[in-house]
């Protein structure tokens, strides 16, 4: 039984990483209705920028804020320059665009900062949290930040005019335009916010997985899976999905014989698919009914 609770605790700790990333994934999905495959790379690039700032002597929180602003602007710039012209192109062409963006960012980061693994500082320290060996203060901090972010987003979307406008633009673009919402800029804003949330995720994950250009590959896959599991329409679901993902993965690795590190991911994915077969919109997603 102790092994079981320990594994669940450890699962929640890794789950916090996935939850963060899933939140960014859901953000962009709300704004543009696609999954952005380059999201992880954008987060990685932002993390590298903050690392570079710290190398130049900027203190942690200063670098944190500057990076957030830069990635917000960067996200908007990417949308305006690269994806606005593609808005009318078929969806699959857009997906190819995401893959191209992925390749460009990954390769540029590799050239600028090379592929060696770098240490990344944590603002929370890495001592055991409340005497538990399984969760460090950093991981506890990460869970805290994720939850704060979630609450912040909830209030933003539920109680501010601009949040409402963004939801309207995503749900019914034509009607939103008719009531005077600039839907095109709402999409850009969505990109900016997703990019900033991704940057937060990147900076929180980096102390755990270490900083290098390929650090987000695995995390992003789990983030996607978590978002899909929780329901792509629900930020709350995405966070829960992230934690569940971490727990699934740990339990599968512990209790199913013959599952090494490498089979964890396929098993977690298979489990998600079986959930989806029963609940096609995800655990907390709204089922979107199509009019014929």
């Amino acid at each position, binding site marked *: 039984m102790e092994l079981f609770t320990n594994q669940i605790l450890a699962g929640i700790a890794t789950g916090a990483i996935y939850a963060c990333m899933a939140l960014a994934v859901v953000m962009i999905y709300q704004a543009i209705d696609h*999954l952005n495959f380059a999201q992880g790379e954008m987060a990685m690039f932002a993390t590298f920028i903050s690392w570079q700032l710290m190398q130049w002597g900027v203190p942690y929180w200063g670098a944190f804020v500057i990076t957030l602003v830069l990635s917000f602007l960067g996200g908007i710039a990417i949308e305006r320059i*690269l994806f606005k*012209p*593609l808005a*009318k*192109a*078929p*969806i*699959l*062409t857009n*997906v*190819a*665009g995401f*893959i*191209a*963006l*992925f*390749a*460009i960012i*990954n*390769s*540029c980061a*590799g*050239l600028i900062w090379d592929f060696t693994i770098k240490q990344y500082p944590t603002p929370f320290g890495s001592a055991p949290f409340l005497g538990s060996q399984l969760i460090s203060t950093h991981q506890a901090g990460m869970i805290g930040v994720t939850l704060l972010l979630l609450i912040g987003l909830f209030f933003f979307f539920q109680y501010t005019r601009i949040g409402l406008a963004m939801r309207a633009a995503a749900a019914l673009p034509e009607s939103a335009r008719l009531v005077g919402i600039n839907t095109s800029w709402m999409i850009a804003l969505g990109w900016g916010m997703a990019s900033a949330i991704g940057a937060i995720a990147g900076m929180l994950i980096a102390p755990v997985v270490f900083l290098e250009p390929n650090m987000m590959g695995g995390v992003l*896959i789990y983030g*996607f*899976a978590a978002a*899909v599991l929780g329901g*792509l329409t629900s930020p709350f679901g995405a966070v829960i999905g992230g934690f569940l993902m971490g727990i699934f993965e740990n339990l599968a690795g512990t209790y199913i014989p013959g599952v090494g590190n*490498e*089979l964890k*991911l*396929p098993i977690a*994915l*298979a489990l*998600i*698919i079986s959930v*989806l*077969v029963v609940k*096609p919109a995800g655990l907390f997603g709204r089922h979107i009914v199509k009019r*014929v």
Partner: protein
Amino acid sequence: MSAAEEVVAEGHEAVEAVPKRAMTLGTGTSLVVVVLLLIVPLFTKNFIIFQMTMLLIYGLAVLALNILTGGSGQFSLGQSAFYAIGAYISAVLMEQFNVNYALTLPISGVLCFGVGFLFGKPALRLSGVYLALATFALATAMPQLLKLNFLEQWTGGVQGLVVTKPDAPFGLKMSQDMWLYYFTLAVTLAIYIFSVNLLRSRSGRAFMAIRDNEIAASAMGVDVALYKTLAFGISAGITGVAGGLGAIAVQFVAPDSYTITLAISLFLGMVVGGVGWLPGSFVGAAFIIFVPNIAESISKGLSGAVFGVLLFLVIFLVPHGARQIAIVGQQLIGKLRKT
């Protein structure tokens, strides 16, 4: 320009409707292409022949995805898994059971058809992003499954298997590469003709009806479940044959050759070639084989970035892929004929 404008204007759907005739090339053009494919290898070096063989093989794999996505409107990131299964079946049959290489291909095809059909069954309930995730799971699991211990006596585990290259039969004086090229070309032509006819048949029309509007299709009496799984199975089967050919051409199979990267390349090939336009599959295959090399030669350190920029250029200039070029070209020729 009206047809091209029409194509651009209706771009909101994931896969836009294509008139049936626009899915293939005209007879004259096809003949010219086939003659070129027959003649060119006689005058080139072995390495180029090998690359042309790979082009046909990847072209087949992209074609298979195109039937699934362009034909029936379903999306798959798991094609690398079927490619791997096909490759392994051919390799294992040839090396462990001494089956003739030409006989292994239909076996690969049929078995992959079965796997695809079975996988398509539960996947039926999923669509769009969810289907993409399910197929993606298959693709990530495949290399790990191939490494499993109890399969190792056949698959060779992590090390993989070496496959012997077949000699030209009937005492033909031909290098192995050239024979393999003509063999691949014959298989490719057969599958291409099969695919074109498939999309023109009753089943093909059912696929396209499902793609354009699933609810309307089922109201008209199309068995949506059957045809969706059928599309999955056929696509997997063709991919399996391509995988088998690939194993023979590369002379080597190993789990890590068939990762998700392969599935993504095949997807890019389909987009570049034009979704739903079968001849475009081979243009797309050329893109995914040659452009990474070109990118590498432009800049070693930034090859990924160069590849990304080239890909962006292509999708900015022709968001509908090679098909768009073909349509514009056709209209130009039409105009010239009139004047």
